[in-house]
């Protein structure tokens, strides 16, 4: 590594990372992979190629067996579990395929909960309203239970939830698979716009290559991994 000092810190940096699936012989390895800050990356690959595992490693839910994951220029995978939880709360936003919200809480409570775990101040009414407005959701949605929203609305609230702490990194896993074409288009535009505004590094994972048009750069998962054997997720 002879990178000049002036080069901006990488948002994500994986060095010699390997991960062995429990109770299975398949194994994933990421010899060297970096994502610059502010980059919006489309990561594609067929189902079962290890996309979700990679996101788990990046979110600190899983830890690599060897090698290291560094986020925002700081070692991440070597942190204690509690510190990883804190780091995740403050610096990483995550949006899943589905079920991003606690169904028995209201939208406002869901967002407040995320702010609570990040240890920051609770979002004010104006801040929430602005965020909801930016996501093109009706204002009254805030006081509805998450389970009463449509899937499309839920996914948009999930972005609000993920962005409330203004994370540097946003990890998104097939967020549109439950949406129809129109909703998907609206969702993708919103997501990329908000990331651009906040200068958020976005890792967008999907098997659907047609979504790559919304993002700056596409990478095939197979290009960054060297799976030892056929892996399963």
């Amino acid at each position: 590594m002879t990178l000049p000092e002036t080069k901006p810190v990488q948002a994500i940096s994986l060095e010699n990372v390997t991960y062995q699936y429990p109770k299975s012989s398949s194994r994933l390895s990421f010899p060297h992979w970096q994502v610059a800050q502010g980059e919006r990356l489309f990561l594609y690959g067929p189902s079962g190629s290890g996309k979700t595992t990679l996101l788990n490693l990046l979110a600190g839910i899983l830890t690599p067996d060897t090698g290291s994951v560094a986020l925002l220029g700081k070692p991440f995978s070597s942190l204690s579990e509690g510190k990883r939880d804190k780091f995740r709360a403050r610096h990483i936003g995550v949006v899943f395929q589905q079920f991003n919200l606690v169904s028995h809480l209201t939208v406002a409570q869901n967002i407040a909960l995320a702010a609570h775990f990040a240890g920051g101040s609770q979002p004010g009414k104006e801040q929430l309203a602005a965020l909801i407005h930016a996501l093109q959701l009706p204002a009254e949605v805030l006081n509805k239970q998450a389970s009463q929203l449509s899937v499309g609305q839920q996914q948009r609230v999930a972005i609000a939830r993920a962005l409330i702490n203004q994370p540097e990194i946003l990890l998104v896993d097939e967020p549109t698979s439950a949406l129809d074409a129109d909703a998907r288009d609206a969702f993708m535009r919103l997501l990329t716009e908000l990331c651009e505004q906040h200068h958020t590094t976005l890792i967008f994972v999907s098997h659907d290559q047609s979504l790559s048009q919304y993002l700056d750069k596409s990478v095939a998962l197979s290009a960054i991994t060297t799976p030892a054997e056929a892996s399963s997720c």
Partner: protein
Amino acid sequence: MLMSFALSSLRSRGKSLALTFLSLLISVSVLLSVEHVRLQAQESFNRTVSDVDLIVGAPSGQLNLMLYTVFRMGSPTNNISYASYEMLQQHPQVNWAIPVSLGDSHHGYRVLGTNQQYFDHYKFGNKQPLVFSQGEPFKGVFGAVLGADVASALNYQPGDDIVIAHGLGAVSFQNHDDSPFTVTGILAPTGTPVDKTVHVSLQGIEAMHLPHAQLDSVLEQPDNVTNPAVQPDSVTAVMVGLTSKFATFTLQRELNNYEDDRLMAILPGVALTEMWQMMSSIENLLRFISLLIMLSSLFGLSTMLLASMQQREKEIAVLRIIGAGAGTIFRLILIEAMLLAGAASVTAVALVTGVFAVAKEWLASHYGMFISANLLTLHTAMVVGAIMLATLLCSLLPAIDAYRGAINQRL
């Protein structure tokens, strides 16, 4: 924040929660009731007789004599002669002696024949004397003083005429219609069997057992207590207060060996202790059963939480991804269990209080137990504390399960 999350999460699982809550409520109520009755029964029995050093009656068992004379329960004992009462009254070591003559009833309430000594010296609770809420002690042959419950249940006022029947049932085969008594006074409530008693003179007891012809002559001069026709020749028992407590055992031995009458003297304190020893095995059995019920519903709570883990996987994944540590998930499950057990305990205290407030009267009249409906005692607090602790222990398993699940959770 965790607290409101736990509340919201509990609310979202309405049905299984309601059932678990009910099962906890029932078991906590059973446990509290058993403990409450146990303590209150003991207290109520212990407060019934105070300051009486010896109870003297015909030889039977000390328990039977005490139950019959003090609590008006159990089988009647034989009588002792009135001369023995007079002997006790004149005994140098005896401060006071109250004669007690039982065996009759008025609408199911016991009738107790006695004399002025009773109102002067009988004490209950913590050496509290009897107090008249209305009227005064009886003077003539046909005066009656009512316990507070008798007066309120039958709605009697001083001056009312009442009829006393021979026998003990609420419905008597033989009514002594011809010997009407007049209420002269009503006692203030004591929380003891005194409240359920009709007090008359010893002469009154004699008068109502007289044949018609003789009774008429007594009725002609109702204030003449020296009338030879109504002089008592026996009493059921005598309650004795001594001039010095040190003489108790000497006098007890002396009375047990008394030659002119067959007497037995018992120490109420000793008899009560013997009674509690007999009760304690039943008591322990009851406590054991209620603890088992409690335990089984705590396992129910544990099962409910464990079963809910499956459906809550998604919720826990969301919490994890927004930065909740596995420890937070662990605490969350414990908080939920504690909230549930806490709510069940509070409701149980209210429920048991309500039940005793209603059943108080019935317990007092059927079992002579005066149970207060006040459950807010240190002991209740300790029982609830123990329940909360047991809940904590029983919910450790699901909490650990959630903790492990949270650690192994994938997105």
